[in-house]
């Protein structure tokens, strides 16, 4: 436990000195301010044209940012020989990876918080700000999205030998999860018998954190009826008292599984070295 905290603290220290983190922070803050401008053009309450656009823009930027920051942090440990040094200490892989995850999560959440903080405050001062509930839902959406994608980033960082490999993997995973997801699902599931499509789409949605968080947020913003009669029961359920806790539990399980797989891969690598 102690070593875990040490790793997390070290990661935070490195993270807050990492120029990458600051450039992403600047990018995200700029981005949130531009969302504020978009917001100022129209009425935003619940799921509307503007909040839909904001959701999609966050979906483009935040996962890619997370994947890159997270995976680079792990590969740099390998490339710069820090891991070999750390291996000489009595430090378990589990504590190492969890510590890294926590440290990186703090850095990422700081980036998200700064972006939201600046745009929330600026909007309030300018009198053209976000509606409170929509703002909070977007914030929760961004936090969940980064935490879930950080899980994937840990996997990518474990699998990649160096930064270049990590970059390639991160970008392809991002493309797959954000852009290619509907086309691929439509193409492959379209061949299934009709009755299988809905269960298949539902099950696969749980595998894609981007879709999972997006749908949860759309329903919470009140746009559940856009998803059509097929998912009516789901929508009612998500809006019910158990929707949020169960979603959070799923997110926890998701991150847990990602870290567990990373752990197993890292352990195998450790044996080989």
């Amino acid at each position, binding site marked *: 436990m102690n070593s875990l905290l040490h790793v997390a603290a070290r990661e935070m*220290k490195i993270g*807050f000195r990492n120029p990458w983190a600051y450039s992403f922070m600047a990018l995200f803050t700029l981005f949130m301010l531009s969302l504020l401008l978009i917001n100022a053009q*129209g*009425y*935003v*309450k619940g*799921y*509307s*044209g*503007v909040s*839909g656009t904001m959701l*999609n823009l966050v*979906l483009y930027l935040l996962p890619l940012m997370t994947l890159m920051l997270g995976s680079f942090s792990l590969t740099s440990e390998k490339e710069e020989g820090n891991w070999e040094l750390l291996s000489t200490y009595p430090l378990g892989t589990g504590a190492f990876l969890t510590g890294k995850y926590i440290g990186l999560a*703090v850095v990422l959440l*700081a980036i998200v*918080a*700064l972006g*939201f*903080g*600046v*745009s*929330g*405050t*600026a*909007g*309030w*001062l*300018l*009198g*053209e*700000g*976000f*509606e*409170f509930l929509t*703002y909070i839902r977007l914030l929760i959406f961004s936090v969940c999205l980064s935490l879930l994608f950080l899980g994937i980033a840990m996997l990518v960082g474990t699998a990649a030998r160096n930064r270049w490999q990590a970059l390639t993997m991160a970008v392809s995973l991002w493309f797959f999860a*954000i*852009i*290619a*997801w*509907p*086309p691929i*699902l*439509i193409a492959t599931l379209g061949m299934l018998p*009709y009755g299988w*499509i809905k269960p298949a*789409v539902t099950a696969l949605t749980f595998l894609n954190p981007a*879709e999972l968080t*997006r749908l949860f947020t*759309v329903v919470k913003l*009140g*746009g559940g*009826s*856009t*998803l*059509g*009669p*097929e*998912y*009516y029961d789901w*929508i009612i359920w998500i809006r019910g008292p158990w929707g949020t806790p169960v979603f959070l539990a799923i997110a926890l399980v998701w991150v847990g599984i990602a870290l567990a797989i990373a752990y197993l891969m890292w352990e195998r690598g450790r044996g080989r070295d």
Partner: protein
Amino acid sequence: MITRRVKVCLGIMLLCLFIAHTGTVHAEHKKADLQRLLDQASPGETVILKSGTYDGPLLINKPLHLKAEDGAEVILLNSTAQPALTIEADQVTVTGLRIVDVSVKEEPSILLKGNQAMLDRLHIQTGAAGIMVRDANDGKIMRTTIEWAADGVRMADKGNGIDLYNSHRMHLQDNAIYDVHDGIYMENSDAALVTGNRFERSRYGVHCMYTKGTVIQNNTGNLNITGAMIMNVQQVTMEGNTFAKQSENVNSQGIFLYNASGSVITDNRVEGNRVGLYVEQSADNRLDRNEVSSNFIGLQLINAASNTVEGNLFLGNVVDAQARGSESNDLSGNYWDSFSGIDTDGDGRSDIAYTINPFFQGLTQKRPPFQLFFQSPGMVFLEGLYQTERDKWATDRSPLMAPPKDSLSEDRKQAGSGTGVAGIILLAGTGSLFYGMRRRKT
């Protein structure tokens, strides 16, 4: 005449006193007495009721004016399976009564079968239909509140607020109808004037079935499944209505036209609905100058032909328009805020057309489960790639470059201070984190 009226009043007053002293045992008497009063009254007479509770059911079978005394609280309580009030004669006026008829039953609270009736300022709490009008023409129902009052009944099993069948030229004005099945249901009833009514939390606000020449003006509907359901109609006019927040149900719409023809839908405001204007299998209608804002889908055209859609304002909808099988409509001069046009000749209209991509509609019609991808980033990307047979898409030939100035309703809400406080907390949090993490000089 006057002495007679006074006598009636005195009689009822005495009766009230009597009842007050002897409890409910004599309710039967009172019922019999009010009915007897009505039976004894001569045609054309005005019967004024003092404050008090009277038992139904009541039958009016001659022209009468039944009226609550000014400022009096007159309650007609019905616990039988019959209508609380049945009107069989022509030219009956009923004013100012409160009707409490909460048992769930087949018969309506008021059954109107006479012509030229006038129902004014009633308050009906019903467990059935509010006012059922059958084969009665030229009546007026005004300033009446109808609300559902029985617990634990599914929406599909509730009755309608005002239900017209084969009743023409009815005038329904300034009524408020809550929590019923359909607010106003009109079947085979032509040339009704429906104006200034309010519908909330019901299945449909206004529902037309096989009607002709209905005029629906300045009504308001909130939180119904569908605001106005206009089905199988001809020459219906809808203007100046506002339908907002019909968004909870997967079949929600602001205004729904199905198999409508020759109708005019103009100057309405539909806001925050699942679909603002939904037009299916309808032809030769005009949809003009409507303000369609903050809906999930602004305009949906499904197998609709030769309708004119002109000068409407589409603002802040998640998707401005979807269309399928609707290429022969005449769309022009609408403002679509998601579209940026090019205007080289400076006439305020774009030289490039606004086209409605049918990809998502076509996909989800064949395979509804893919509706889950509604506006997901990948789906937006895929729609952009789909460009087949563009000439068959529904197209606005000359969309407006800017919204017409007079049409924008200015009700911008102020930014909540909650957002500002949350923003400052977040800033302070990250600020102190940076401070704690700064490089320390050693």
